[in-house]
């Protein structure tokens, strides 16, 4: 029984080593810092993107201008 236990312990130890070594080959990609850095790269490629659609065409009504009163030329004063 003792020998079996010893063998099992060795197997467990082997597994630990295998898992630890395996971790080194697994690709761990830190996504969050990569996203921030990708944004910086995109900044260099794409200038700030603003919609080129005219404002009036997306439903914002232009403020109505007050009617301009016609300028009347002064009436000639009859003498």
């Amino acid at each position: 029984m003792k020998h079996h236990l010893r063998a099992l312990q060795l197997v467990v130890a082997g597994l630990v080593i295998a898992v630890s070594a395996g971790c080194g080959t697994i690709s761990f990609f830190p996504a969050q810092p990569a996203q921030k850095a990708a944004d910086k790269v995109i900044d260099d490629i794409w200038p700030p993107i603003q919609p080129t659609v005219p404002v009036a065409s997306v439903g914002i009504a232009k403020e109505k201008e007050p009617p301009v009163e016609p300028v009347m030329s002064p009436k000639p004063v009859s003498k």
Partner: protein
Amino acid sequence: MAFAFNFILRNWRLRGGVFVLLIAVTLSSGAYAATTPTPDVDVSTPAIVVIKKSLAARFKFLRPHLESGAIGLTHDGLIAVRDLQAIAVNETLKVEAIVAEENKDRASLYREIARANGRPDWESDLKSTFAERWISRAASGWYHRDSAGKWIRKM
């Protein structure tokens, strides 16, 4: 499974072994995570500078077609022609050629950034990261294609 579990529980030596195993795995994964380098996606090499310049110069041509919906962004970090009818007949071939050039440059960009980080295995992750960021940074009204091939108009 139950037998193995009972066997481990009954045996104090084995129990100790499993405990040691758990601690070792925890420590090794923690140490690995702590030592994993942060990807320097904004890394600059002569090759990356050239690719970025090429992409920036091409954007002036692509932009009206992105706005008209003739082309769109894809879920894999590239672009694709969405609606040929939105392109003038005499420009179709030119647009298709430029889309191909753009995709070539984008693929090179992801590959070069991965290589510059000494992690060529990150290329696929970088591609996914950029795909998400391109779409997120796109203007409203532009189209992007999901993994099922469906075109979605960004609101």
